[in-house]
């Protein structure tokens, strides 16, 4: 249960102190009970594509990440990672296999390119797995609510908003 794991974590700017400040500024309450950290798993892929254009094929790369818990795929910007040792109980459990994730990532990239280029093109996509990476989320518990804060963007999502609000 207390096993430690060495993982790659996406570099983040929002540390515990900043997370508390963001939350207190937005919620206007100071009954913070606890602050916890959770590392969320993703599969990271690089899709090498060739776009057919009038003057030939243009090569480019699309980064794609697949949520290893829900299986949702998305495109991703470039980011740096750092190695970190974290406790097992802070790691969310992966429920998606890398083979499945690779297919989902490829399908997502195809659909993404079709939509972006408004064309049914053959992009000659070659998927390269770049490993597992983790993103840190802060969970702040207050007396009547809990919120999640994204350690990179600062986005906030309530975990159990009071229905009468």
């Amino acid at each position: 249960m207390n096993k430690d794991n060495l993982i790659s974590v996406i570099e983040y700017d929002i540390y515990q102190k900043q997370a508390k400040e963001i939350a207190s500024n937005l919620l206007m309450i100071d009954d913070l009970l606890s602050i916890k950290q959770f590392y969320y798993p993703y599969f990271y892929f690089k899709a090498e594509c060739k776009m057919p254009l009038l003057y030939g094929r243009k090569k480019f790369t699309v980064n794609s990440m697949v949520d290893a818990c829900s299986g949702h795929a998305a495109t991703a910007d470039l980011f740096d990672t750092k190695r970190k040792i974290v406790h097992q109980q802070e790691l969310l459990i992966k429920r998606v296999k890398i083979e499945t994730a690779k297919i989902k990532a490829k399908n997502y990239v195809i659909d993404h390119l079709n939509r972006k280029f408004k064309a049914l093109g053959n992009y000659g996509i070659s998927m390269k797995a770049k490993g597992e990476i983790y993103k840190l989320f802060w969970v702040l518990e207050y007396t009547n609510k809990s919120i999640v804060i994204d350690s990179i963007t600062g986005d906030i999502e309530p975990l159990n908003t009071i229905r009468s609000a």
Partner: protein
Amino acid sequence: MNTTVIFFLVIYYIVVLGIGYWALRNGGSKDLEGYLLGGRKIGPATTALTLQTTSMSGFMFLGAGGLGYIQGYWALWYAVGDIGGGVLNFSIIGRRMRKLSQLFGALTAIEYLEKRYPSGALRLISGSLTVFLLGFYVLAQFIAGGKGMALVTGIPYPIALAIAVTVIVLYTFMGGYLAVAYTDFFQSLVMLIGVLWIFIAVLYELGGFTAANNALNSLDPTLLSMWGKDLGFEGQWGVVAGAILIFSIGYLGWPHVVTRHMAMKSPTSAREAGAWATAWNLFFVPTPYLIGIFAVLILPGMSDPEMAIFQVANKLLPAAATGLVMAAIMAAIMSTADSLLLQTGTIAARDLYQRFINPKASEKQMIWASRGLVMTIAIIGYCIALIEPPSVFNVVIFTTSVLGSAFLPAYVCAVWWRKANMPGALSSIIVGALIAFCWQFFGVTEMTTIAPMVAGVISSTSTMIIVSLLTQSRYPVPEAILELIEESSRVRLIPNNISSTSNNSIATQALEIKKFIGKNG
């Protein structure tokens, strides 16, 4: 053949192509690629104007003008619904659907329906219906493109139609190149400037609004009435309701339009997008109808009223201006057609071919499945448009009525009614489509004075409610889906001081973390 118009048409396209070429070749920096490929999100203004341009173009330049020409001010009932359509779209389903589709991980509007109402049959029926109806809708764009090109260039219709269809299909296959220059946002501005330019020329020709209305009164006072020419629709509120509803709530059931909600920057941008859509609609939507209404004074006795806007532009604008405005209009028509074909091809490949025929389809097989369908639509569409072209107005009204009647309750209830279940959605889609189709096919509107859209939406909505309630115990909505619907509605409950900065992009992760904490104490 009008060589000046052709010259300026060609110049316009060369300039736009040149900009696109330069942008990709020289400006092909990481910034440009980032814009196209980096998953940069779509803001409210672009979302709104993209939705509006996708929904309109071909119809607005032919159908709307033709209706105004024939029925006078009665045609503005359609414009009333259209102006409010943007706000309804974004406020009713926009924000919630955006969040729910993200939670489902759905890529197409049909896949979204299957994930909300788990059923292979629902996806098969919805996919087939959408492919058929969108294919039919593309036919209207072919006819609009062919007719418009034939008129402004003087090229014979069969050749103009062949050019229009070829360009639209090529545009769909190789659209990436053109998409750089022709974003829908740019299109929307060009369309707006184009119709306003023609409208100003019309008012100038007729001596202003009051003089134009006085002239209409002298010609035929009923053209100024709210009941149509010769008061043909007097007291027919069912038809009027249909005219208002078709473009206001009708869009809510269009799979290719609701897809736009799924690409929105954030659920909270829906409100701002609604304001943008309304502002654009206020200027753009009534104008083609008004040009059509006043065209009867400039070009009386036209054999094909749907050509009113093109004919007026041809008559009033200088040849160079006609070339530029027509190029913009043609580009808008083609842009709409290519969006529709792309959507149809994607649904055919992903929702039908990969889902039911070849689950292990490779990328190439998927592309060929989509291309095969696009080519089939193009060939059939060309033949119909050549042999016996229906009016653009009729095709659009038919397609909108059936699509809206079939899918509106399914999309709206997906986010607003927790009890909406699979049998309810499936039966509502079938009943809505059948009623709207039969209503038009058997001419029931004339007998009942109730528009197909009204009959279709009432039938499909009541079917959804009755069947969902009757089958609730046997087919309850799965708990996991209810949880996601609950999550999609939560944005409203976040206090105001948070909601302004929260974009809910971490909703899925928050849900997973919540589950994880629940399991691990």
